[in-house]
Structures are given as C-alpha cells and as structure tokens.
C-alpha cells in the first residue's frame, strides 16, 4: 500500500540522483563551447564556438592561453595502460588457475594479492619512490609507475578470473586430459576459449584503471607525464575552457574504446554460441 506511494517518490529521487551524477559534466560540456580566447570557464556563454576544441589541436592562432601538452602524454598513457593490461591479465589468469587447487599458503597469497587494490595509491606510490631512490633507480612511467599500476590492476584481473573459474565445468578439461591431450594444449584449446569472455573483462578492468590512474603515477613516475598527470598540472594554474573541451574529447575517446570492447565481447560470445551449435550437429 505504502509502496504505491513510495515507488513513484523513489523513482523521482533516482532521477534527481542521476542528475547529480551527470550535472557537472553537462555544465562542463556546455562551457567547452565558450567563445575564445577571451571567454572564461564560467557563464554566461558569450557566443557558441568550437574555438577551444580547435585550440587543443593547435588549429588556432597563438594566444595568451598556452596549448595543453596532451599529445605525448596521451600516447604514454595508452602505452602504459596496454602494458599494464597485458601483464596483469597474464598474472591474473595464472594465479586464478593456481587457486583451483588448494595449495599450502593459498590463504596468505590471496590476501597479499587483494591488498594491492586496497592500499591507497599515495602509499604504494610513495613506497615505490622510496625504494627506487634508495636503490638508485631512476623513476619512469614505463618502469616504476608500470610496476605499481600492475600491483593495482592485477588483483582486479585475478578476482574476475577467480569468479569465472569458480563457475567453470572442470569435466571438459578432465575429458581432454584423459584423451591424452597434454595440459598446455588442453589449456589452449579447451580452457582458454571457455574463459575468454572473463579474460576480456579482466583486460577492460586493467586498461581503464591504469589509463585513469593518477595517485600512484604521481610519485612513481619520473619527469615524463602521463595524461592524468598533465590534467593535474592544470589544477594549479588558472583554468580555461580548453580543459573542459579536453574532458569532453577524452570521454568520447573512452566510449569508443568501450565500443571496441563491446564488439569484441559480442563476437566472442557469438563464436562460442556457433561452436556449441556445431557440436550439436556433430
């Protein structure tokens, strides 16, 4: 009875909640079309223009607003995210595979791995910087920062793979073994195709987390900035709408990456479906 009143009230509330989540970004998008170069990062919109988008790509005449150093940092961030994705997915699959047999010390190792996603980035970043300094190792985004990124993303990949393998029917593997197929070949031909959707999710997790990772990178990387560090650099100085335009562009970019993932996922699911049908026919 009361739920008849409560449900619409809650529905309205959820609408407001979503507005709360999206509001800032909507305002940011509107302001990214501010007139330039005089227009500031606030209302009212003097005149609608794409000036700040052109500004990012260096298509505007030089003005007092310096262009953002985003080109190189974007490439660095993508490379780093890719390295992190491959490493943490490989480690995640291997570790989850190991956890299928209850080996001695598995409880301890489990907590050691999960700790990686619990410890705040400032701390792992600080610790890595200290170790590197003491050992006289120079810090770079592709060495020390990469290592801390994997510490962060590997637990996610591990947990995703653990969840997948928990629901996995081991009898197909046993059938393959008993037919004399060696373990490595069984893994390649039987296990891996079956867990592939999970591998894709683990990769997506690792890539997005590393691509946007900031607090670990701040201390662990050296002079060359990654994309989040370049954005953080704009915090200190006066902000212009070019940062907003940049935010809109990176979001669109993330969505295109997400679309690639969705396409890969659908393809792999469809392939699995087709394989099942072929088996039925055979």
């Amino acid at each position, binding site marked *: 009875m009361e739920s008849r009143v409560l449900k619409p009230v809650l529905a309205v509330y959820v609408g407001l909640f979503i507005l709360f*989540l999206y509001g800032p970004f909507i305002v940011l998008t509107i*302001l990214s079309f501010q007139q330039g170069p005089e227009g500031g990062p606030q209302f009212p919109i003097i005149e609608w223009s794409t000036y700040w988008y052109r500004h990012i790509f260096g298509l505007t005449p030089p003005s007092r607003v310096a262009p953002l150093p985003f080109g190189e940092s974007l490439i660095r961030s993508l490379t780093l995210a890719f390295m992190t994705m491959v490493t943490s997915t490989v*480690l995640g699959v291997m570790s989850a595979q190991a956890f*299928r047999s209850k080996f001695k010390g598995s409880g301890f190792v489990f907590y050691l791995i999960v700790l990686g996603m619990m410890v705040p980035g400032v701390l792992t970043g600080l610790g890595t910087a200290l170790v590197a300094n003491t050992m006289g190792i120079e810090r770079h985004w592709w060495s020390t920062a990469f290592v801390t990124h*994997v510490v962060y993303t590997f637990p996610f990949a591990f947990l995703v793979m653990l969840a997948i393998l928990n629901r996995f029917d081991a009898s197909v593997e046993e059938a393959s073994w008993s037919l004399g197929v060696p373990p490595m070949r069984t893994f390649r031909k039987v296990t891996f195709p079956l867990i592939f959707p999970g591998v894709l999710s683990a990769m997506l997790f690792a890539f997005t987390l590393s691509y*946007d990772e900031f607090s670990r990178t*701040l201390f662990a990387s050296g002079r060359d900035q990654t994309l989040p560090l370049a954005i953080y650099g704009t915090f200190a100085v006066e902000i212009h709408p070019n940062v*907003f335009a940049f935010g809109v562009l990176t979001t669109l970019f993330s969505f295109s990456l997400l679309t690639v993932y969705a396409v890969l996922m659908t393809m792999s699911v469809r392939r699995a479906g087709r394989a099942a049908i072929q088996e039925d026919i055979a």
Partner: protein
Amino acid sequence: MAEQIETAETTRNRTAYWLIAPGAVWMALFLAVPILMIVYVSFWTQTTFKIEPILTIASWKQFFSSETYIGSLFTTVRLWLIVLAATFVLGYPTALFVGLFVKSKTLSTVLLVICVIPFWTSFLIRVLAWRPMLGKEGAINILLQKAGLISAPIEALLFSELSVVIGMTQIYVVFMVGPIAFMLSRIDRNIIEAARDLGASFWRIFFKIILPLSLPGVIVGAIFVSVMVLGEFATTAALSGRKVNLLGNIIVTQVGSLKWALASVVGVILTIIMGLVIAGFLRVVDLKKEL
C-alpha cells in the same frame, strides 16, 4: 593406487606453485617491500636536502608536535565520516529502487549502467567539472538567483570544505549503490510478501528485514568508500583552494619539498587508520559467510 593419487596431487600442487609464483613475487616485491620501506624510512634522519638511514624518531615527534599535522589528521577523519554518511544516505534510496522496487531485470541493469557511465570520464576531469558548477558565477548560484531563492551568490559553495564533500560524494556514491543494490536484489521477495500479509507496515519491514539483509552490501560499499576517501588528495587540491588539507595532501607537499621521512610518517599513520577502519567494518559483518 593411493600412491598414484598422491603423486597426481603433488604434481598438481607443484603446477599451482609455478603458476602462483610470478604473481606472488610481484606483489611481494612491489607492494610489500614498498610498504615496509615507508615504515623504515619514517625513522630515518632528515636533513634539509637529504635523508640518511640513521634511526631516529625525530620525524614522528615533528608530526605529533605540529598543530597543522594533527589538524589534518582530524580533518581527514572528519571528512571521511561526513562523506561516508553522505554516500550512504544518498545512495541507499537509489539502491533500494534499483535492487528491490524495479521488477524488470533489464531496467535495473540499465539504471546501474547509467550510474557507472561517468566513470569513463577521467577522475580528475570529473573533479574539475565541479568548479563551473559551484563557483560564484557557477551554474548552481545562477539557477538559485534566477529562481529568486537567493539575492547574492553563495560564495561558500566553492573552495570550502563543503565543495570537497559535494565533490567526493558525487564521485564515490556509486561504490555504495552497487553493493547495496546487489544484496537487495538477492532478498527473497516471499519474505517481504509474508511480512506484509501478516500486517507489518513498510517501515517495520524495512527495519526488520530489508536493512539487516542488505547490511553486507553496506559494509562492502563502506569499505570501498573509506579506502578511497582516506587516501584522497586530488579532490581537495582541486576544490578546496588549499583550505582543506588531508593526510594525503600533507604527503604530496612533503614529497614535493623532498621531506621523505615526514611523508613516510604520515604514510604509516594513514596505513594504521586504514587498517583499523577495515578491521572494524569486517568485525560488523563476516563477509566470507555472507558472500
């Protein structure tokens, strides 16, 4: 026969060790060692330009004798509690609607996806987006003035503790919604139906059935939010105008001026707080039993 099984098992065990070794070594070297290093360095001797491995508690004394540092310790705890409460109060009704009130699975998935989509915008951009929203000439002030609710813009909206709380709540509230909605969706609807048939009011059902059964979700969400808020420094850097200093901000400034020993002291204190908070939450609910 028994021997054969045993050897098969030892082979499997050996394979397991080979498989786990790279991951375990990675975490030991690049997670455990750095954390221990922070503890160790916090006892090093700091001079103006360098640190030396001569053990001393000078940095610890410096932290506990400074009002600024003690103040930031309390600010961190206070902001953490406020944001935790805000994410719970704002997030629970949404989770209730998504997890319990929406009957169609598709709609509840769509709503959850809508909540997650903002995460594909860079975290720092999302924080920065609050500036044109909260500023003196920001969207909220303009809207309120147009609506005639206020005559002069509210200046305390931006570059204050309030703006930091608003920003953090918006960024982290989804981590509260997800786990709670998940637990709520697993509640057996027949229990609620039965309670209603027996004449229990909605609020009684809520406090006696729904809330207790969703508690594990609340705890998981609270752990997520706590871990992230306690280690924060970017939101305060962007939205507080240097007025709010969390322990994380202290670490960043100290590292910036190469005061590694003091930064390590703050790091150790932060680690201890985190450990206490997580242990406290896990004491409320036994997650292994619930999940």
